[in-house]
């Protein structure tokens, strides 16, 4: 029995934070106003905030190339509407939070975001316009969002789900450039990279090739192959994804697996991205009780990891927390 101790990830997070703090100090020496990546630190002095604001003002107008093409933002956007949880997290992590006036119904982090009934899936142009935004950030251009907002003269950034870690970093930097927080975005990205690298290094390569199963939903059992963004994140640890042998181009890296296959593939770790109440409530205890699953090594060794579903399904600044959870699981392997 190797119960997954809560102190594990906690200790990891502490080291990671320490690393981020070191990074912040180092960058501060270069004249940047750093805020650590995941903590909601607001310790930046008034002076540095003012100087960064003036520097940001000088950066406008700015043109960035988002998924919907080149978007020019004439001046520092004072009123931002975010229609996507990841974009919301990005905005707050880089210090653009005070400019955000409304977020969509699915945005729930950080605490206290101005949540509204707006929908990013089925956006209502008039409802968005009511907030008089100077910039709209969304993950998909559905319901004529871009053309509708463009008619109103409001720039829209489409920041879709990414395929690689580098694309996730680039997205944070782009949101930074578009909102006047380029320097803070760079700091956030550097902190994320360092945290992730430290966790991957600490986990080591002793467990290279250990098979794992990433569960997106139960009955039917959908998984994510290595070609997906999340597969690449786990791939940092050199584990073997049992969905790879199954995935076909048509499924976009998200194959439906049969239970028989999952059980006989004998995964050593099971990651549950459908762990929380709102997402299927497949907790480690529920998985361990599934008929026929008791012989799986991951079940026998208590290596079923109930992830924070939000973090596991987004590509924002909390990625290092996900990597830390994976690292803790990998280190528990024997």
């Amino acid at each position, binding site marked *: 029995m190797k119960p997954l101790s809560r102190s594990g990830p906690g200790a990891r997070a502490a080291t990671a934070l320490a690393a981020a703090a070191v990074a912040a100090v180092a960058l501060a020496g270069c004249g940047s106003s750093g805020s650590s990546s995941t903590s909601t630190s607001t310790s930046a002095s008034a002076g540095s905030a003012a100087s960064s604001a003036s520097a940001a003002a000088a950066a406008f107008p700015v043109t960035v190339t988002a998924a919907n093409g080149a978007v020019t933002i004439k001046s520092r956007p004072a009123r931002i509407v975010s229609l996507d949880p990841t974009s919301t997290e990005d905005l707050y992590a880089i210090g653009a939070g005070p400019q955000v006036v409304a977020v969509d*119904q*699915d945005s729930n982090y950080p605490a206290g975001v101005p949540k509204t009934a707006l*929908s990013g*899936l*089925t956006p209502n142009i008039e409802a968005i316009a009511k907030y008089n935004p100077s910039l709209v950030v969304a993950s998909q251009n559905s319901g004529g969002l871009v053309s509708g907002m463009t008619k109103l003269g409001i720039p829209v950034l489409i920041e879709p789900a990414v395929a690689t870690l580098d694309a996730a970093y680039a997205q944070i930097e782009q949101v930074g450039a578009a909102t006047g927080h380029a320097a803070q975005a760079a700091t956030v990205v550097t902190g994320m990279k360092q945290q992730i690298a430290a966790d991957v290094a600490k986990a080591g390569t002793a467990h290279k090739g250990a098979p794992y199963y990433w569960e997106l*939903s*139960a*009955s*039917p*059992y*959908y998984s994510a192959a290595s070609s997906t963004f999340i597969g690449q994140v786990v791939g940092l640890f050199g584990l073997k994804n049992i969905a790879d*042998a*199954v*995935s*076909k181009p048509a*499924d976009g890296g998200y*194959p*439906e*697996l*049969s*239970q*028989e*296959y999952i*059980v*006989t593939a*004998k995964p050593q770790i099971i990651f549950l991205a459908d762990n929380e*109440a*709102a*997402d*299927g*409530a*497949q907790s480690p205890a*529920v998985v361990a009780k599934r*008929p*026929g*699953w*008791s*012989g*799986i090594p991951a079940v026998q060794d208590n290596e079923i990891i109930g992830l924070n579903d939000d973090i596991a*399904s987004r590509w924002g600044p909390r990625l290092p927390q996900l990597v830390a959870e994976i690292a803790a699981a990998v280190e528990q392997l024997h």
Partner: protein
Amino acid sequence: MRKRGALGIAAIFLIAAMLVSALVGAADLNPLDTVAALADKIPFVHLPSGLSPLDRAVLFQIRLPRVVLCALVGGLLAMSGAGYQGVFRNPLVDSGLLGASAGAGLGATLAIVYFGAVGQGAIPPAAFLGSLGGVAVAYLTGAAASRRTGFGDGVATLLLAGIAVGFFFTAVQTLVLQRSAEQDVQTVYNWLLGSLSGATWQQVVWILPYAAVSIAMVLLHGRHLDVLAVGDEEARALGMRPATVRLIVVAACALATASAVAFSGLIGFVGIVVPHIARRLGGPGYRSVLPLSLLGGAGFLVLADTLARTVLAPAELPIGVVTAVIGAPAFVWILRSTQGART
């Protein structure tokens, strides 16, 4: 004699389908060892099997409950399709009629969107109640409208009420879905496509009493449906009460459909294609169409699920897609040769 022969064929078909289904799967168990492990379960038979404990778990805890649940669901759907066709004297009627599918869909959607907190356990009871509720609303509306207008014998009014209720429930479901989160939409969509990938013995045990009651009630009314086929007036002349028979059979079929869709999701075509094949095999009488549909539907869905889990193995296809892919061409074939398919 024709009836008995056809029943024998259907029974053999079902047993063969279940055996094939038990022998194939993503786990690639050795067929000989699998047969030995299965035969070992028969009383007084002891056979050594080379299956590992993990393989045995796959066979007995994952594959077999799925085969059995498939047989139950397929049999119930096909039988209730046949029952509805008899009640409504209409060969184009399906088990999902009268708001049964739409009600189940709405129930499952509400469970997923608003009661996600209790997990997926809420879906089967919600779909079950939704399906029964859909039929109840359709039946009561149709019966009331029929009484008020005195239009026809009530059959057409009931069908129309079912279609209206179906549209309404589907619209409410779309509205709820449109207001919900992305993840819920995916879960609902998966459910609507139908899947038996999570079958357990517990689900089989849960479904059995409902299956037993509904099968007994429907099969006992085969003769009544045959009389009903000649018309309400004639049935009344023979001392039968058509409205009562209709209510009993509709209730039993609704129970059968509801308990089937509760665990399987929406699976189309079984309830319409299988009864027509049963008619060609055993003649138009409901005393043979009903049991033939029960056995044939069970075998049909077991085979469809076997395809669903082997065509793309180790990935899976939604079973609703398989039944539609087989069912749609089969349906066209039936339409092409209508002279044989009297109803």
